[in-house]
């Protein structure tokens, strides 16, 4: 069994009296995409900062690629790429110059910045000053910057937050390409659709603790409620909704009765979303 790409052991961090991250432990396998889901202030960004060597844990430890992050942050940082939530590019420099600067910081000599720009849909705009880019273009350039050293692990903090569908789709495509290349991806997001579609596993974090960690499918199986929802014309001619829970002995008879004796207008299978499960587990939404 290959060594995990990321190991978090009892990671803890405090901001004064506030326990931001509370003894969390998890592992991420090489080539896996782990979604880290939680509302604002849940501890997602603090966890990312500890994993990427930006913050030193109050207790516990993080190992990336077998290296202790707190002890050897620069060894780790040489092999990771980080895409921040807020654009933090040099706006007075061009896109190409931003990428070349970071390539030099990583000691990468043979980087093809134009190919990188092409991958994120910015070909032809590399010579423009970043200050003239739209928000979506800046976010795509941030992704390109995170890839400049061909990282073994990619940390993406809300990479598609507030982006237009085209930019968001371009970024999701790059994430999947990176996974195919073999990179491990740690993705924090609010977007349940994105997490469901991209992530091999998702972790729910709330108030600094991981409350669930599994594949989206298993979470839905474990915590979801399978049912069908029908819109039916009633005897008075008005529409009403009927829900039938699946996986019960009486379910087949209930469905047969519905179809036989009622005028069904629509019929949909329903499954719990990750957000439904999160609300069920924490009592609060992800926003």
């Amino acid at each position, binding site marked *: 069994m290959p060594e995990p790409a990321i190991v978090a052991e009892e990671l803890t961090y405090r901001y004064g009296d506030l326990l931001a991250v509370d003894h969390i432990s998890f592992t991420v396998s090489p080539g896996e995409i782990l979604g880290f889901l939680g509302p604002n202030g849940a501890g997602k960004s603090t966890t990312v900062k500890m994993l*990427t*060597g*930006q913050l030193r844990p109050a207790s516990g430890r993080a190992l990336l690629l077998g290296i202790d992050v707190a002890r050897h942050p*620069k060894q780790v*940082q*040489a092999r*990771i790429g*980080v895409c*921040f939530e*807020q654009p*933090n*590019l*040099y*706006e*007075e*420099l061009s896109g190409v*110059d931003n990428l070349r*600067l*970071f390539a*030099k*910081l*990583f*000691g990468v000599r043979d980087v093809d910045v134009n190919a990188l720009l092409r991958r994120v849909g910015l070909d032809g705009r590399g010579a423009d000053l970043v200050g003239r880019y739209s928000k979506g273009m800046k976010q795509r350039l941030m992704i390109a*910057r995170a890839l400049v050293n061909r990282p073994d692990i990619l940390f993406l903090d809300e990479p598609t937050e507030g982006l237009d569908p085209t930019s968001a789709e371009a970024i999701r495509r790059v994430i999947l390409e990176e996974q195919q290349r073999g990179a491990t991806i740690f993705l924090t997001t609010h977007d349940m659709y994105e997490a469901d579609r991209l992530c091999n596993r998702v972790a729910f974090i709330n108030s600094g603790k991981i409350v669930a960690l599994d594949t989206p499918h298993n979470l839905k199986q474990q915590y979801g409620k399978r049912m069908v929802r029908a819109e039916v014309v009633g005897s008075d001619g008005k529409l009403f909704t009927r829900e039938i829970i699946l996986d019960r002995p009486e379910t087949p008879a209930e469905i047969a009765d519905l179809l036989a004796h009622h005028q069904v207008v629509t019929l949909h299978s329903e499954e719990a979303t990750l957000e439904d499960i999160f609300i069920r587990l924490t009592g609060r939404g992800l926003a």
Partner: protein
Amino acid sequence: MNAAAIWALIQKDARLYFANRLFALVTVLGLVAYAAIYFLLPATVDETLKVGLVIPEMPPALAEALADDAVVVKQFASAADLRAAVAAGEVTVGFAFPPDLFDQLRQGSRPAVELLLAPEVTPDVVGVYEAAARELSFTLAGQALPVTISEVILGPDLAGAQIAPRQRMLPLFAVLVLMVECLGLASLIAAEVEQGTIRALLVTPLTMRGLFVAKSLFGSLFAFVQAVILLAVTGGLAQAPLLNLTALLIGSVLMTGVAFLIASLGRDLMSVMGWGMLALLIMALPTFTVLIPGLAADWVRLIPTHYLVDTIYRSLNFGAGWAEVGGNLLPLAASALLLLALGMAILQRRFA
């Protein structure tokens, strides 16, 4: 430390500096303006005293008493003419003796002598002119005091070689050049923090130490080169070049430390400018003591730039060398290293 990474950061900072039109303009125009002002200021000091006299006749004794290269005597027909000449700045001081001066003296009465002065004459100098008026009156009355006065100049005798205004201003220009770069560097660092680019830099193999080395090199060398250009253009490097270059280099490091401190206090360009102006005022104070020597006080020595200004001023204007002002470099270097270390420590906390 990775030299290629540090060089990349220095190049990046230079491009960002000149991408900021305000700093690019201030840097280029500043150098040109300082040099232009230097050359527009008088290169020599007019040491002659222009005296206006209204006097019935010039006795030989008085003519002899006033016979001095440094005194130019101009006679006027009336007190009204003399007043107009003083008001117009044609003469510095005027003595108007009454037309019947000698008759009054013969009769034993007390003639009134009018002393005419320009408005800017300071009270201590007024006293000197009053004494001169009495002395002239004694001479005119044939009662010159039977004393011989000998002059003793303590320190270098600057008669005929007074320090020109432009030479007094040169240390101020040098400090201003360094301070402008200090403000530029501080705003660059504050912008890195404000825009979050510092976080992006520090999740690469670049270490905090490497980052500070790059910033220090950029700030110090950039300021140093400009100060050297200014001194070279104004001829300031002709005198004790090694001493002055060393002082300027240490001064550049000092200002880089000040820039780190300003950047640690400022959150944006405006607050950097606010703190920067305060720092500029404090750092420029020692130059004012050169412009107005009477302003000098011991506490000025607490301001590190005193040692920079004193070194440049004395070496350029009095030919002072390592033996005379070399001792200035030690406190200058110590304060530069102290401010640099303090600035780095505070900034490091802000970066974390």
